[in-house]
């Protein structure tokens, strides 16, 4: 009986370690995969997880986008997540988010880029602060120049 339980526990851990899931970002501890800065900003952080289950953290959405452009590895990624600007610490699907580049809202790597889950709120911020809205695809194009 004991053996079975320990086997089950072992299986459980193997299962856990193999699952492809986003990881919790350890703010102040993790560093950015693109620029090596320590990730601290809950409103601008980002993450991607490969299909093999390895998670990489980014301190800014521009770092994530530039890394994906550079490596050209979007096919190999299971999750691409960006922080929702208005709910600090919450990561949302990058492909569904709306992006705002506005001089009034600064981001860690100087691109003035923020991500919004809700398009309506992005519109509000655009009206208030000015700038330009992007979708995931147009954002990648913007940084590939």
């Amino acid at each position, binding site marked *: 009986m004991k053996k079975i339980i320990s086997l089950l526990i072992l299986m459980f851990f193997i299962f856990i370690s193999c699952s492809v899931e986003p990881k919790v970002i350890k*703010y102040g501890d993790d*560093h950015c995969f693109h620029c090596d800065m320590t990730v*601290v900003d*809950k409103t601008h952080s980002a993450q991607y997880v490969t299909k093999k289950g390895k998670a990489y953290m980014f301190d800014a959405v521009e770092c994530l986008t530039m890394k994906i452009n550079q490596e050209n590895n979007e096919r190999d990624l299971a999750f691409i997540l960006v922080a929702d600007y208005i709910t600090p*610490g919450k990561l949302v699907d990058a492909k569904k988010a709306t992006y705002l580049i506005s001089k009034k809202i600064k981001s860690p790597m*100087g691109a003035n880029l923020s991500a919004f889950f809700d398009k309506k709120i992005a519109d509000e911020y655009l009206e208030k602060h000015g700038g330009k809205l992007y979708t995931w695809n147009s954002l990648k194009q913007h940084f590939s120049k």
Partner: protein
Amino acid sequence: MRIGVLLLFLIYSFTGNAQTSRIDVCSSCKVKSIKDAIKLAKDGDTILVKKGIYKESKLFIDKSIHLIGEDYPVIDAENKTDSVIAIKADNFSLSGFKIKNIGMSYIKEVAGVFISYSKNFTIKDNIFDNVFYGIILQRVKYGLIKDNIISGNAKNESSSGNGVHVWKSKNMRIENNTVSGMRDGIYLEFVNNSYVSNNTSKNNIRYGLHFMFSHYNEYHHNEFRENGAGVAVMFSKHIKMYFNTFHYNWGTASYGLLLKEINDAEINDNIFEQNTIAINIDGCNRINYKNNHFIRNGWALKFTGGCYANIFEYNNFQSNAFDLSYNSRLNDNKFEANYWSEYSGYDLNKDGIGDVAHRPVKLFSYVVNKTPETLVLLRSLFVDIINFSEKVSPIFTPDNLLDQKPLMKAINSLD
């Protein structure tokens, strides 16, 4: 015409001087709040605030006035999310205050002192306690930030601001401040021609000092200890780094100095002691490293990304686990006349220079770069053997990566 202008200016400055007055603020004075005093004041006036507790925030100043605190009067913002003093004026000064309890905001930049579009000013001898941002400077020039003590209580959270945050400014001097418990101690973004000297920056979550897109700056005689990482210099040109001390920056993401995409810098006479990585060098070109001390670090120098035309001369590498870690087979950097405590050669002609060239890269550092977990094998016999065999007949390290003239004695030894 010119004389007329000069005369006018003289008259103006004379009468200006003659009319300046002093306004006292205290609980028993005629003027009881700083806000009222600011309203009453004219250009050139002095406001003297006596000892006491002032529960005020959102003080807006658009005049050239001098705010002086006597015996550190306390301005308590009671955790409100508004900057305590916001200034948009030229020729002003602020000194001798204790500003505390500034609220945290994710979206707004809330500071003890917020200065924008100003020039010729002094912020001196103030205490900032429990603040979100200490001092924010935007689009300013010719400012002096001196003798301030700034502390936050940033824990492992990201909900913290920077001690001194400078954005799009030039000709600044930041001297003699003590900054602790913030996100970045001192942060310069798009700041040119500025000096950062004699500051102590410690226990900050991210960096002691941080340069982003800032050119022609100089920092010297600063101390950076126990920060997430000591100093980060990123995407900047012509930065001079002299006589700084970087120590006890330990941890997985910890560097004494992080250099990313830096060109044409000078790094001289610095001390790097007990950091996980003393200098992490990523894509940096034409940098001169001279007379630096690397003592008891995990890695003294770690190269990632292409680095070209860097020169390392007269540095001391003493008791580091790895002196140098390299990521490519090509080397375009020059290592000459450094002292390496790992050097096992000899000096038969007694000229102080080793007769055999020294190879600073250990083979094992390549293994560790690929698979960090192998670090547990660091002190094993097998690793010693492969390191030795690589030294004798190098296969993995670039052929020309060696110090032809290793010194037998440390330069300016600190002991």
